[in-house]
Structure formats: structure tokens, C-alpha cells
């Protein structure tokens, strides 16, 4: 088992407030890891540290064996250069709660932008690959539509195609279905599930407990900036050890 994501003793503060208080987490190749917990527990912040959208103050994140975001220079911890960070971010793909599709571009151009600008593909190669992934998420017929002409569920599926077409080592999902109408949640979860079954390595922050239980190899429960409990979903959901997780599961519908 090759570790794709390794987080060691990660600390993160917003001003005086410490929101991550020493996180250790390993995600192996092909694993689907769900992070659950109440809001303010630090789960989204942890996810955003994995692609450097958040800075962190102590500890280390490795993606595919490479330590990202910071380097040691003369014994000092310094932020990596803009260019290095951009390259490291491209090792992960992220799907946002609010989709964040580029509104001035067609679905197709949303997907090809990173392929041509970051991966250096020709327009033709990029379109071919984008078409492949748009078809995979069921959005090929609407590749020329603008985001505003698509439903939330359709936009999120394009956003998934945009992220995964970059061939990332790991996909990060930040509450990917929280902004969707209830009747649109299913189509997006189905897309994520089928990618998981194909062996894509994934980290999901989610409030969909049933989904977390069904697709995950490991579930991580965060509480107050720490990992309070983690394990296979069967054990975690049926026999939670910590009183906090017991209380959390009681309030969330399964």
C-alpha cells in the first residue's frame, strides 16, 4: 500500500484561534476516506491544507511522497515559491461546495483550461480528454453550455470532470453536495461513487452519513481540531467509542 497523502502533526491557527491541533492522517492509494464532524471541527480546514488553499504553521503534508508548501532554508521553515506551490496544487484535484465553475467559459473550456495552461497539452489533446471526462460524468451533450445554463447538479458534475481530468494523485471533495437541491444530490453522489469504485484515491468532507458509510474505506471523525476517532465505517458507525461521536451520530440522520 502506497501512501498518497501523509499528514503529520499538523497545526493551523487563524490568529489566536488554533483550529487544527495536531493532525496525523494517512490515505493510501485507492482509499476513500471520509471526514465527518460538526461544523467548526476543522474538517474543511484540514482538507484545504492538503492543496495549500490554507497555510499551516507546524507539521507536514506529503502528497505522493513530496512534502508540500514549505521548505527548510538554513534551518528556517519558509513558504515554497509561488510556482512550486502551483505545481504542488496540481497534484490534487478539488471539488468545492459552491462548484466554482468559471462563469465566462463553457463547460468544455472549464475542463480544458487547466489541461492547456498547467499540463501544457495542445488544444486538441485537451478537448479530447475533456470530452472523455465530460462523457464520464454524463455532461458531454452540454459541453458548450455556460454554468448559468446548468443546474447545480450538472455544474458540480462538470466541476468533478474539471478536477479529475488533471489526473490528480488524490481528489478532495469539500461538502460537494451541501449546496444542491435535495433531488440533485443523488446524481452527484452517484458520480463520486463510480469514481471511487474505479480506484480513485479520495478524501471527502461530507455531511452525507449514509454515503460516507457506503463508499468509505475509512471514516475520520473530527472534533475540536483533533481527530477524535477513525476506522472502517462499519465499526465507526455501529460501535462508536467516544461519547462525542456517539452524540454526533445521534443528531445526524443515517
Amino acid at each position, binding site marked *: 500500500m502506497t501512501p498518497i497523502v501523509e499528514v503529520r502533526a499538523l497545526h493551523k491557527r487563524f490568529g489566536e484561534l488554533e483550529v487544527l491541533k495536531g493532525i496525523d492522517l494517512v490515505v493510501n492509494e485507492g482509499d476513500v476516506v471520509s471526514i465527518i464532524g460538526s461544523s467548526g471541527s476543522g474538517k474543511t480546514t484540514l482538507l484545504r491544507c492538503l492543496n*495549500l488553499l490554507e497555510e499551516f504553521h507546524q507539521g507536514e503534508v506529503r502528497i505522493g511522497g513530496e512534502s508540500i508548501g514549505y521548505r527548510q532554508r538554513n534551518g528556517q521553515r519558509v513558504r515554497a515559491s509561488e510556482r512550486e506551490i502551483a505545481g504542488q496544487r496540481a497534484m490534487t*484535484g*478539488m471539488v468545492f461546495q459552491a462548484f466554482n*465553475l*468559471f*462563469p*465566462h467559459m463553457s463547460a468544455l473550456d472549464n475542463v480544458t483550461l487547466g489541461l492547456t*495552461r498547467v499540463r501544457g497539452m495542445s488544444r486538441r489533446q485537451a478537448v479530447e480528454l475533456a470530452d472523455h471526462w465530460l462523457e464520464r460524468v454524463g455532461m458531454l451533450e452540454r459541453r458548450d453550455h455556460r454554468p448559468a445554463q446548468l443546474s447545480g447538479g450538472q455544474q458540480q458534475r462538470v466541476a468533478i470532470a474539471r*478536477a479529475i481530468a488533471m489526473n490528480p494523485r488524490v481528489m478532495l471533495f469539500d461538502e460537494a453536495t451541501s449546496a444542491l437541491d435535495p433531488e440533485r444530490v443523488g446524481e452527484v453522489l452517484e458520480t463520486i461513487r463510480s469514481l471511487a469504485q474505479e480506484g480513485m484515491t479520495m478524501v471527502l468532507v461530507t455531511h452525507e452519513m449514509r454515503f460516507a458509510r457506503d463508499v468509505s474505506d475509512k471514516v475520520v471523525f473530527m472534533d475540536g481540531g483533533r481527530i477524535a476517532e477513525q476506522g472502517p465505517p462499519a465499526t465507526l458507525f455501529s460501535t462508536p467509542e467516544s461519547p462525542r461521536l456517539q452524540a454526533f451520530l445521534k443528531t445526524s440522520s443515517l
Partner: protein
Amino acid sequence: MSYHFNFAPILAQWPLLLSGIGLGLLLALVSIAIGSLLGLVVAFATRAPSRWLASLAFAWISILRNLPILVIVLFLFFGMPQLGLSLDKITSFIVALSLYTSAYMAEVFRAGLLSVPPGLIEAGQAIGLTRSRIQRDIVLPIMFRNALPAFGNNFVSLFKDTSLAATIAVPELTYYARKINSETFRVIEVWLVASLLYIVCCYAITLILRALEKRLVLEAN
């Protein structure tokens, strides 16, 4: 009392009136082009990490917005030669109008920049785009689209402001209207015709820009 309208002596001068309109449009176009470029630089400068540069940009905006355009025109045309910089009247007027409009365009672009959702920048970062790429491929195109309606309004008011060029004898529409007025004494007719020409032009500009907006402005999501 009865007044007998007689438009004939004014309409006989139509080549002058048309060339006046033409020059007015040209002055407005050149000024908005220069003013927009300058305004774009100033808009980015207001968000510069250097506090010194940002303050300078804000000062630029508030000084120029609090000066009457006529004062800028007269200052540049009559004042600058005293400082050893004489410009011909057309250049001088274009400089005045460009400076003036740069402050307004800077505000338009600044609002446009603020209207770009941070989530889109994060989405660009997440696929590994560099900062300058994000500016070029995401921030600027969205900003321009969001700024387009305000840009159109500025262009119309800028075109109307070109009538002030008459004060330094730039031969645009108002200048010729005044000239025809003093030659024919058909006071009412000449200003009616000039007014009508301004209205038609402004309306045409508005229609063209609306059509452009309709194609380019992003629908609310």
C-alpha cells in the same frame, strides 16, 4: 406672439455639423481608451500590497473625481504652457478628458475586481494555475464583463463632455453650433438641431453598447 422657424440656414451647414459630431465621437473614443487603460492600472494599484502605492491610487481617484472637468480642461490648456508644456488644443483636451475619465474607470474596474468571487480564484489555484494566469484567464475577463454596463454609462457621459472642448476652440459640434448661431442668428433652430444630434448620437451609442452587454454580460447564476 408667433415665431417663424427657419432651419434652412442651419441645415445648409450640415457638413460642419457632421464633422463636429465626428470629432466629438473621436475625442470620446480616444479618451475612454486611454482613460480605461490608466483606470485599469489605478484599479489594480488600489489593491497593491504596497500601502504607499495604494494610497497614491486612491488619491488619484479622489482628486480627479472632485475636480470639475471644465477646470481640468482650462488648467491644462492655459496653465501648462506657463510650466513650459504647450500642447495643441486637441491633444490638451484629450489629456484632460483621459485623466478625468481614468478616475471614474478606476472606480468601475475596482468594483469589477471586487465582484469576482474569491471561490473562482481558489478554483483556479486548485487546478494549479499561477497567480498571473489566474488574473489573465479568470479575473480580468469576469471583471470586464461585470464592468461593461458602467463602462457604457461612462462613455455616453464622456461623449457629452466633449462639448466642453468648444471652450478652447476645438471644432466639435458645440463649437460649430455657436459659430453658426453667431452667423445666422437663428438661435433657437441651431440649438435645437445641435440638441437633436447629441440625443440621437447618445441614444445610438447606448443601443450599441446594450447589444454588446447582452452578448457578454454573465447571467446571474
